[in-house]
């Protein structure tokens, strides 16, 4: 392989590493999937990516693109070895084009950084994963990420106008333009979204942006059980209100939230729903009151948070609650498996009930929180990772949770991706023939199968 290292040095200079320490650090993302790469490279421009892919195609070397490595399904784990392509150094905001309601960015731009740059212009890029402080736009596109506000604003896919993509053989293509809508041919832009780097490497993206809402209001409601909470959510939608976030937190989640920040005034005696509405001041005030009225008869408590500071604190804590369990019990670690199932929204209470049963039966505690407004439930399982028996139980629980979601007509991943961790469920979720179509597409674009091999059940 010494010839390979020289070829990589030729392209990347000092931005290539074959050191054991570096390879070890790039062997996994935030999931449990691992694979040791042979090399790590950090490109600075599209030509370097193109030269790399041409070389790797010719020599049949696997290439695994990676953003910030915050993925939860092994999408960035190089399970077949080869080269990890760390795109986080391509992090320029190329153009902020307010008059055309868009930005052009390199894939390594971090979501929060983009939003800091847009804020002075009064705009924002709405998809808001919990990892927005560190995840990259490239990773968000490749996993079709979203977050708490997708109930109103949709997912990353809804904001893509144009991508620059390097194909497996090194060709560079563009999939769109600056127009806000286009009806010209196959929608290749959205084909690359959610493809987890199996079809090409994204080197630039044109993104639609949205005006920042002038105000937000947060309504904290608490219900005796998830079914009642679920009914209240349907009633809110039926009243013609589209909340900008609609989150469910179970008792345990609220306790963990409070352990992180004792000042956070979240009830912990039932299932909490956080409704957020955004828009002009008078409409958010009216909608917040309306939500409170709708929920009051069935709820244990209802409160409208009035200060910006309190809202920010609650959302900040909610964003990071997943990893916070070990603050409550240092012997326990959150394991990101079975964490991203989704079902039609009417089925959320049934899913919560099933997860409760699975967790009780296997004696694996679970925090349950998520985007009840779009049917996405995040199950946080936590175990003592030094206990093999708990690992076995955890794997069983994960399998049952995935199957429960599929039984309810759902998906094994709503916003984190399939990677390797959930690949085995794709035949059941999509059907064998649908998967065959995906395989045909993959083969047509990447015949040597060098791009992120081993992922998506292909």
């Amino acid at each position, binding site marked *: 392989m010494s010839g390979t290292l020289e070829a990589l040095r030729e392209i990347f200079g000092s931005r290539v590493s074959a050191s054991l320490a*570096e390879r*070890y650090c790039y062997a996994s993302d*935030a999931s449990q999937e691992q694979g040791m790469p042979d090399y790590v490279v950090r490109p600075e421009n599209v030509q370097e990516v193109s030269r790399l892919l041409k070389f790797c195609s010719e020599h049949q070397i696997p290439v695994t693109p990676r953003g910030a490595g915050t993925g939860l399904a092994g999408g960035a784990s190089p399970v077949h070895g080869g080269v990890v392509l760390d795109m986080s*150094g391509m992090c320029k905001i190329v153009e902020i084009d307010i008059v055309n309601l868009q930005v052009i960015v390199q894939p390594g731009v971090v979501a929060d950084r983009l939003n800091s740059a847009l804020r002075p212009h009064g705009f924002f890029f709405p998809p808001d994963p919990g990892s927005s*402080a560190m995840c990259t736009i490239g990773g968000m596109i490749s996993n079709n990420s979203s977050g708490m506000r997708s109930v109103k604003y949709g997912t990353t896919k809804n904001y893509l106008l144009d991508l620059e993509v390097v194909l497996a053989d090194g060709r560079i293509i563009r999939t769109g333009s600056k127009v806000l809508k286009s009806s010209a041919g196959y929608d290749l832009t959205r084909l690359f979204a959610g493809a987890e780097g199996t079809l090409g490497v994204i080197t630039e993206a044109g993104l639609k942006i949205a005006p920042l809402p002038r105000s937000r209001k947060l309504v904290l409601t608490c219900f005796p059980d998830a079914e009642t909470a679920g009914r209240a959510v349907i009633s809110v939608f039926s009243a013609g209100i589209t909340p900008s976030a609609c989150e469910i937190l179970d008792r345990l989640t609220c306790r963990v939230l409070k352990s992180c920040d004792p000042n956070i005034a979240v009830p912990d005696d039932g299932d909490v729903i956080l409704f957020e509405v955004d828009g002009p001041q008078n409409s958010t005030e009216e909608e917040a009151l309306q939500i409170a009225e709708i929920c009051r008869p069935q709820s244990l408590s209802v409160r409208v948070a009035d200060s910006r500071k309190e809202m920010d604190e609650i959302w900040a804590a909610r964003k990071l*609650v*997943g990893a916070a369990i070990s603050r409550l019990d240092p012997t326990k670690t959150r394991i990101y498996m079975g964490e991203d199932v989704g079902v039609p929204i009417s089925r959320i209470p049934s899913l919560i009930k099933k997860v409760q049963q699975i967790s009780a039966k296997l004696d694996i505690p679970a925090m349950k929180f998520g985007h009840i407004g779009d049917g996405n439930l995040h199950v946080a399982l936590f175990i003592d990772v030094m206990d093999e028996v708990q690992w076995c139980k955890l794997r069983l629980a994960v399998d049952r949770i995935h199957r429960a979601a599929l039984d309810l007509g759902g998906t094994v991943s709503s916003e984190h991706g399939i990677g390797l961790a959930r690949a085995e469920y794709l035949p059941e979720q999509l059907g064998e023939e649908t998967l065959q179509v995906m395989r045909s597409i993959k083969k047509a674009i990447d015949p040597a199968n060098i791009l992120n091999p081993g992922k998506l059940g292909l």
Partner: protein
Amino acid sequence: MGMKLDLRSINRCVRCGTCRSVCPVFEESGWESANTRGRILVMKGLANGLEADKEVQDSLNTCTTCGICTEKCPAGINPPQMVEEARRELAASGIMTAEQSDLSRRIYGSGNTFGERTRRLAWLSDRSRLESKSDYVYFVGCMNSYRYTETAMNSFALLSKFGVTMLPDEQCCGSPLLRTGFSAARLVDANVRQMKQIGARTIITGCAGCYTTLKNSYPADIRVQSIPEFLAEHISELDIKPLPIKVTYHDPCHLGRHNRIFEQPRRVIEAVCGLLEMKAARENARCCGGGGGVRSGYPDLSLRMAKRRLLDVPEGVDYIVTSCPLCIRNLRDAGAGEKVIDLVDLVARATSLPK
């Protein structure tokens, strides 16, 4: 056979990458092994038998132990402690860089971090001003003893008014050794013995590195105070004549984040002149790159971090004030020069001190 490390803490890391967004070393390097998540993976590797080659050592040794990752970690772990533990384990097995072994030899041989052979109190013109008995001792530290002697003079002039004395044969507090994996027992013993002879129960220091070491690695019955705390406590007795200038304050990591001393230096500054905050301040302050052995082991990296820290300085300030000679050296060397001053030197300008 792997190295014995704190697996409990290592396993609590879920690799969410929050630390990646704040690690000042990673900001310069860009390699995953140079951020906290990477370092914890490397530690996990060591526990599983990964060979501690040069790159592994670089990963661990480039941490400035600034603690901003501790501040942000949702899982609540304390990476600087873990890094120091791993460095200790490596050093105990004889695995260290040439810079590490030079540093330890220098300190063990001379009692100071520079290997200086001259007297530590050479800056003191009149040794008869040293009281042989006192409740309070001013701990000068290596940097101010040998490099910033004017700050040492000003500090002693301010403190001696309150009956504070000094150790006749002060030794390095041990911080550089402890931060890079070595034992400092001999130095600690020598300093503690002199404290007892003087009868002092409180030790006051103007160095953030010394402060955190005295506080955490010395006997618990010694009361440790930083100069900013002492000055804030005695502000009304200092006879300050306000100065018509504006300054900013750089929070030294080992005073601020590690020991939560945020308010006192600001109170003192505001008694002297106007204060404008840096872009990242208090618990979010960006590290100057000078700590954790990074300045001596990786000077280029260290200076790049200091340069970036200078970008946080607000416009229109006359001075960048701080309370750590390591920060002063790094920020000065990164281009800010004499614009960076110690809090004590600011106060000295606003008071009439006996020389």
